[in-house]
């Protein structure tokens, strides 16, 4: 049994304009010691998925169904008490913007210590010592001195390190990092990614990294899940996704990104823009932008949502086109021919 199992997760937000189905039937498993990368366009439901796993969505504003099972316990139906004992202890999350999760009026050390005390019955001093150890662990220089600094006295990279220290202080088995490096420079990103990889090895945690940067996924992930308009459209090992992508959206993403290691005359964008979640297309949500649609007989793409089906063991794709046809379209696309 996997450490975390997510089954048919759905999250909808009732709004004045109608129901926003932000996450629509997402399922995946993850083992300890493994990293799952989640990629997808802005608004595709990556953050909502992770907030649902952490039970951080306000039930008054969100309709949630499905299962989030950690070690046999379904957190979707569990009471608030249980969820709280899991959060921080069993699972922890780091966000894109560390400033939004660090309180401006308390020292960094106090905040890490506080997070530790939630799950450990220790004195303030012991907790603060533990905080200093954690800050040291994530590479804050002179941690004993810097622990009494306030967040605004830290640089962006140091704040992200402090957040990671806070997330890790109770030794969680699951770490969710939502765009952990998007606000950081590449040189600092490289430091933070290598830190995440190190702590994962040390704590043998299951890690979920959410990002829109394909390079980050290639660097850290074992498995990858591609989301589009609230649904998983392709998932597989990192090698499946990067070397054998089949879903036209995944292929489109790979072919539209300029590469550091290559010069191309012209980028190949995906035309159009993602659909509004309030007015999803009747068939495949990618159909209005899809360059492979013309290869499908009939009007299935515009009328029926394709299912997420296995194309090879461990590699699933949501597309009406047959696998061999998908691959030939992908080859043409990547060669700049369609």
């Amino acid at each position, binding site marked *: 049994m996997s450490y975390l199992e997510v089954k048919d997760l759905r999250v909808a937000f009732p709004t004045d304009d109608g129901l926003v189905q932000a996450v629509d039937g997402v399922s995946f498993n993850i083992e300890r010691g493994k990293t799952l990368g989640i990629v997808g366009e802005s608004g595709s439901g990556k953050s909502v998925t992770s907030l649902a796993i952490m039970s951080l969505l306000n039930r008054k504003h969100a309709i949630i169904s499905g299962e989030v099972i950690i070690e046999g316990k379904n957190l979707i139906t569990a009471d608030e008490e249980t969820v709280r004992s899991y959060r921080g202890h069993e699972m922890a999350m780091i966000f894109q913007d560390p400033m939004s999760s660090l309180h401006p009026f308390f020292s960094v050390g106090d905040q890490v210590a506080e997070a530790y005390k939630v799950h450990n019955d220790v004195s303030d001093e012991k907790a603060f010592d533990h905080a200093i150890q954690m800050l040291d662990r994530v590479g804050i220089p002179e941690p004993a001195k810097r622990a009494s600094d306030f967040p605004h006295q830290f640089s962006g990279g140091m704040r992200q390190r402090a957040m990671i220290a806070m997330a890790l202080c109770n030794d969680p088995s699951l770490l969710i990092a939502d765009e952990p490096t998007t606000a950081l420079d590449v040189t600092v990103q490289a*430091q933070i990614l290598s830190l995440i990889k190190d702590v994962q090895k040390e704590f043998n945690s299951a890690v979920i990294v959410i990002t829109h940067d394909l390079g980050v996924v290639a660097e850290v992930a074992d498995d990858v899940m591609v989301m589009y308009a609230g649904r998983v459209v392709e998932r597989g090992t990192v090698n499946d996704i990067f070397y054998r992508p089949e879903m036209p959206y995944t292929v489109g993403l790979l072919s539209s990104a300029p590469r*550091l290691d290559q010069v191309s005359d*012209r980028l190949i964008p995906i035309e159009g823009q993602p659909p509004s979640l309030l007015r999803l297309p009747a068939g495949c949500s990618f159909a209005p932008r899809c360059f492979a649609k013309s290869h499908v007989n009939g009007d299935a793409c515009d009328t029926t949502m394709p299912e997420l089906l296995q194309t090879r063991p461990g590699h699933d794709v949501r597309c009406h086109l047959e696998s061999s046809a998908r691959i030939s379209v992908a080859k043409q696309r990547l060669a700049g021919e369609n």
Partner: protein
Amino acid sequence: MTEPILSITDLQMYFPVMKTGLRTVKTGDVKAVDGISLDVMQGETLGLVGESGCGKSTAGRAAIRLLNPTGGKIVFEGQDITNASRRELRPLRTRMQMVFQDPYSSLNPRHTVGRIIAAPFEIQGVKPEGGIKKAVQELMERVGLNPEHYNRYPNEFSGGQRQRIGVARSIALRPSFIVLDEPVSALDVSIQAQVVNLLDDIQKEFKLSYLFVAHDLSVVRHISDRVAVMYLGHIMEITDRDTLYAAPQHPYTQALLSAVPLPDPIAESQRERILLQGDLPSPINPPSGCVFRTRCVFAQDLCAVDMPELREVAPGHKIACHFPQISLQKQIEIRRPHSDQPMPPSSIQVDRPQTSGPASGRDFVGE
């Protein structure tokens, strides 16, 4: 040789740091841009890259005199505009334009798209042939917006479309030079490619020169003819784009390139990364000598004393470093999706630079 359309020499842009109290006193300067020199040639795209806060936007804004520089000289189309007054600058504003980073805050939410794109005509008192509305709708068409959406407001457009609005506005007066400040940074990859292609096309069509400010090194490689790398208010390296990506000589450029993860898991796992220690120093109190020395693994005593000059190490290739590093090329096979064979080895510098002492070209020996 083509002529530079813009020529900047020793440009400085300092912002005063004030301490408020009973009396407001100046306590220092943010040395956002501290003596940079560069030329933008006719019809070329010069990429300006560097990490957050290194002074890229400030340099771009000062270059077209949206700021009053603290020192240095700016020559645009042969005219010295360093100290030009607002009135003197006004006619020049038709020739030089800017597109801003944030497609959300750079457009007035209370103005229709038509009015936003028409603004340059009105400010300059230009009456386009066939009327303003027609001109604006042609511009909308040109940048891939539906001209019927003339009366819509910015919030009805996506990020990519808003950036198209900014581009339409910037080309309204047929400028010769545009500063593009992170024009695609806020966009998703698939949309980013649309806007990059648009910028490519209008550059050719209107014979534009670009100063392309960005922190994304992959986008910069795609769009630039030459690239300048900035760090803490200084230019560290400037050369043609192929040389910069294949054979950079400044330790900072090398670290920066090695930090970018490639969308290629196998190549990625074989790559060695140069991890820079620590954070960017403050531009209020930059390190003495070479500003990069506090994070540079090759730094020696000299680096703390002498600020290295930006000097030519090969034709058209300038770097500011006492100890240039000739990078060793480690050949890594790049794999492409669905390609049965690995691609030819990558041309990017992927391994640690030579560490065995200073490379040739150093200008102090055994002193």
